[in-house]
């Protein structure tokens, strides 16, 4: 199991960073989404045991967080959001030190450090002082430090921050490979929806410290409402009237198609409306709602609920 938080509440002074969050993540890649201040970093800090919850329970990798965190931290890799580094060290030493601290023998830590630095694309720069690395190289170095001890759970906090488009693409490819081909469970916290959509198969949307939605990405995108692009031959007005009568809504796209948003009944409703209005369906294409649209509607919904 990745982690399980139940009724989690974290408070900094008077500010409630997380409020009654219950979330379970078994395995795969989980995207933590939310605008700045949503509580993503607080949730990650709680998972790492950096902050004590005001209320609720936290279990990571099947172990409830209490007392000595050291055995658990050997199994977790953490890529912090902040621009962090060990001062005065070169890339290789910094990664090897992380490996040693996580329990790898020194020789193994050094060997792993070489391998991982090549894996993240810093092989040629591994003997350079980390202070001289560019922003993109530092992000890769943090990923190498998180990976060197071969963690069971990888926590990535905004790993694409400050990367140029190509660097971002490469970083996401790496993370995707880790999650989908190497079987490493990972949590990706980001406010960049395309990043999460590309890497993760599960998402949790946080907004103002509360969990707005969570679940498998495909199910979430499918469950809201089904949208189709339809081309018909026949009386279009009658077809639209039939659709509206059955609870669907329609819009005309610039490409001359009819965008039909149906409730749970889905495509069957479109076929029924066509039969009633004596139209021939020449084309029907399901349209997948983007994560951005889902996020916007969820957050707006949450905001409305707040007000």
């Amino acid at each position, binding site marked *: 199991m990745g982690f399980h938080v139940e009724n989690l509440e974290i408070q900094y002074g008077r500010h409630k960073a997380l409020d009654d969050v219950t979330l379970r993540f078994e395995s795969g890649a989980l995207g933590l989404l939310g605008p700045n201040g949503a509580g993503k970093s607080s949730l990650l800090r709680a998972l790492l045991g*950096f902050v004590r919850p005001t209320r609720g329970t936290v279990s990571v990798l099947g172990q409830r967080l209490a007392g000595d965190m*050291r055995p658990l931290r050997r199994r977790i890799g953490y890529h912090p959001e902040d621009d962090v580094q060990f001062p005065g060290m070169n890339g290789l030493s910094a990664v090897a030190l992380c490996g040693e601290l996580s329990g790898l023998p020194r020789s193994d830590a050094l060997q792993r450090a070489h391998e991982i630095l090549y894996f993240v694309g810093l092989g040629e720069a591994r003997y350079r002082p980390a202070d001289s690395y560019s922003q993109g190289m530092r992000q890769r170095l943090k990923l190498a430090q998180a990976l060197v001890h071969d963690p069971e759970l990888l926590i990535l906090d905004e790993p694409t921050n400050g990367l140029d488009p190509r660097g971002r693409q490469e970083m996401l490819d790496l993370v995707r490979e880790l999650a989908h081909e190497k079987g490493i469970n990972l949590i990706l916290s980001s406010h960049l929806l395309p990043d999460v959509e590309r890497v993760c198969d599960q998402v949790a949307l946080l907004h103002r410290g509360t969990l707005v939605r969570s679940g498998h990405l495909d199910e979430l995108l499918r469950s809201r409402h089904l949208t189709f692009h339809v081309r018909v031959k026949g009386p279009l007005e009658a077809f639209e009237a039939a659709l509206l009568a059955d609870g669907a809504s329609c819009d005309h796209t610039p490409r001359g198609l009819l965008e039909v948003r149906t409730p749970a009944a889905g495509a069957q409703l479109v076929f029924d409306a066509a039969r009633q209005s004596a139209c021939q369906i020449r084309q029907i294409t399901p349209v997948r709602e983007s994560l951005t649209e889902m996020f916007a509607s969820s957050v707006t919904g949450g905001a409305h609920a707040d007000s």
Partner: protein
Amino acid sequence: MPIHDVSYQRWQGRRTDVPPAFIMAMAQLRLAIRRRVVRIVLLLSGLFVVAFIGMLYVETTPEDSAVAVLKQVPFIRLDSTSMLRFLTWQRMLHYVLCLAAGVGYIARDRRAKAVQLYLARPVRVQDYILGKGLPLAVLLSVTTWVPALILILLKCLATASLEWLTQEPWLPLSILAYSALLVVSLVSLTLAISSLTTSPIMAAVMLASFFLFVPLLAELFRALTRNDTWQVLSMQASLEQLCHWLFDARLPHDFSPWSALFALALLTTVCLLFLMRRVRAVDIVGGG
């Protein structure tokens, strides 16, 4: 730059239980020794040792030797008095070591936000503090009890007898006790001041101010109240008093060595408690 040079490999090895403080200390020592100022201080300390080895040579040379005339010089003799002198001469180097190496350890980590990188590993706050304190303790040891005990050993070898040591059997223990007091108090003070700021230079200025102005303040209070006990406030005076007490020499100040011991213990405790709070709070608990 291609990103995929090799693919990710799982690690199948067996984890070890090496204390993280030891791993951190070794890494920090490797960095410290690279610094020129640290190497110069260690070299200067080594020169003192060489000078004392020269003294030892003169002391143990046969009477008919050409250098035997130097034996008439009063301080050419390796005993508790000369050991006291050896450790006292090294004191300035200890302060330089603290200023040049130790005081930057936590300040640099705070500036680079490395504390959370350490604490995200199986490293507790006390491991972190120990890991930062050990390298400075090693550097200070290299200039205190290590050379002093080596000198004693050399004298034993040169004279092929332990007879001289039986006259002062407490000497090795005195050296170790004084060194322990010096190392523990200096390390805890240096790290506590280092944790106050994110700038190593500012931390060095604060530590230098502590070394300079606290004795001045103690002296001022002593002059105003005509009471020597105020000097216990000065870390240097307390260490000096304890050093002379441990080596059975005439005490330089007019206050009890127990007061000095209490003052140093109090300073060390306060510094360690302060460190536990600073390292726990800094860089970890921030905004949501």
